[in-house]
């Protein structure tokens, strides 16, 4: 039954997404501007790291290109999240104007409806940029990744974007009680800025926060540490998977609880 249901969603998803892209593509300049802006934002961060390293050879044991790799990992995860999970930003609006009703009338999970309804193509800008700087970093570090590590990399990126997504969903769920939550969502988004740099350079308290409270560090620092062969402790390779699983579980449960509190709107 569950497998059948999953298959139903897998078949349905591309169809929904292609419809969403179809309607988004009617605004073509919007799309190109978005891709450009997204890549430019990441590019500015790159310049920032470069500028800092003009004065110092390394930071808490991290060299320039190692930091660039972490930065690229974060850009890929964030970009994937932006691209695939843009729908989470619409939850507040749906709740406020009562259009969440129609999602509840459909024979599909509401979370699926939210995700399938909207993708933000410009997230691809971030992903491509991240991928490019990661490859440059690997070349400069003279590292060749084994097939196993490349597979791990892909899994880690998926896990990373799921972590961002889960945190976003937890924030969005609050809109079932509080009407306008977009500012708190932006705030949490800003926390993700920290993951663009290795958490080793931060204060201990912030490290704990980014590992156990809002586990953004598992999207970049931990898997990068493992991929670059800098760390061997299991938390660096199993951590991202466990963190993603935990985050998704918490988000899904909280979402389910929140939708039960939905009050609808108007007549």
């Amino acid at each position, binding site marked *: 039954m569950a497998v059948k249901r999953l298959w*139903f969603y897998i*078949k*349905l998803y591309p*169809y*929904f997404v292609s*419809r969403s892209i*179809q*309607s988004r593509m*009617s605004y073509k300049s919007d799309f190109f501007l978005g891709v450009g802006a997204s890549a430019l934002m990441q590019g500015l961060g790159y310049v920032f790291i470069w500028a800092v390293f003009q004065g110092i050879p390394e930071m808490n044991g991290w060299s320039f290109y190692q930091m660039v790799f972490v930065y690229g990992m974060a850009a890929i995860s964030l970009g994937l999240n932006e691209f695939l999970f843009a729908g989470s930003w619409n939850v507040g609006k749906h709740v406020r104007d*009562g*259009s969440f*009703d*129609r999602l*509840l*009338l*459909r*024979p*599909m*999970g509401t979370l699926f409806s939210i995700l399938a309804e909207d993708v933000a193509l410009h997230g691809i800008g971030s992903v491509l940029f991240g991928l490019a700087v990661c490859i440059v970093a690997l070349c400069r570090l003279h590292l060749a990744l084994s097939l196993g590590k490349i597979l791990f990399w892909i899994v880690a990126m998926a896990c990373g974007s799921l972590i961002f997504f889960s945190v976003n969903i937890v924030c969005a769920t609050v809109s079932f009680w509080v009407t306008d939550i977009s500012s708190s969502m932006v705030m949490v988004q800003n926390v993700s800025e920290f993951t663009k740099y290795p958490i080793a350079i931060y204060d201990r308290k912030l490290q704990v926060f980014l590992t156990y409270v809002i586990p953004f560090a598992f999207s970049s620092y931990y898997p990068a540490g493992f991929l670059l062969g800098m760390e061997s402790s299991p938390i660096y390779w199993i951590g991202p998977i466990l963190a993603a699983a935990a985050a998704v579980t918490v988000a899904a449960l909280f979402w389910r609880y929140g939708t*039960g509190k*939905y*009050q*609808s709107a*108007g*007549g």
Partner: protein
Amino acid sequence: MVIQATGLTKDYVINLKGKGLKGMAKSLFKSEKKTVHAVQDVNLQMDEGELVGYIGPNGAGKSTTIKMLSGILAPTAGSVRVCGLDPQKRRIQNAMNIGAVFGQKTQLWWDLPVRETFELLRRMYNIPADRYKKNVDEFMDFLDMGPFADQAVRQLSLGQRMRAEIAASLLHDPKVLFLDEPTIGLDVNVKVAVREFVKKINKERGVTILLTTHDLQDIEELAKRIVVINHGQVGFDGSQAELARKYADGKHSVSFTLQQEVSDILLPEGLAAHCTIQREGRNVKVMHDSSVSSSDLIVALVQRYRLTDIDIEGPQIEDVVMEVYRE
């Protein structure tokens, strides 16, 4: 029993915001709460194939009831079963059994053409290809949707959109259909088309339909059974005739013109107690309650006076409903 609601109750808790900036700042820390009893202890049973008109003034709790029946809202108390399922706990299965149209909110995809919206629904509800084709052809034809089937929903007129909404709600052959003000804002032609379609669907497919509307013509033409809700409570549940008897007694009348001048209209004793007479020269209107039959009254009158232009009037549904809402 297709729909069974027992003791259905929904309370909303509303945060009261103070006036102006000061009030807003205050409500950030301590907000006053008010409980609104939207629906109270509603009992509603509907058999398969029934068409019930659910009426009541604005804010009476009609939409809230429908939202609980369709799985959108969780009841505060009481139980609901639609086709044997709890609509909220088994929301997805329930969604397969029901169709819903909310006149004030669209269920369609704003940027997609009508035809593509249908295609999306086909996939969403896993509608078998032959059923899908048969339904689309039939609905397109009956509701005359051909001319706008390839236009994006946002470009449709209200009448076109409403036809598309109703067709969309029925593509998956639901057993139950909720129509929440489906004729609101429509012109007369579209209203007639929608009514005919609803009638047809109910008759030919045996779809159980719960209809809310403020258009009493809808009720008169479609609903044999009427449920009236006011202030969240069911005030009446029965046939149109019973409704008229209960709320519009004394609203029957016989009007006529006297051929000769008479000083007083006298009625036999058994009738006089149940009648009131309005007179303007030779034009007379005798109003009576339902214990008197109009034919008895006319026979009695014809035996005594010479009349022309006899006109019999029953209670108008408007009168009935106004009477009910006033309570």
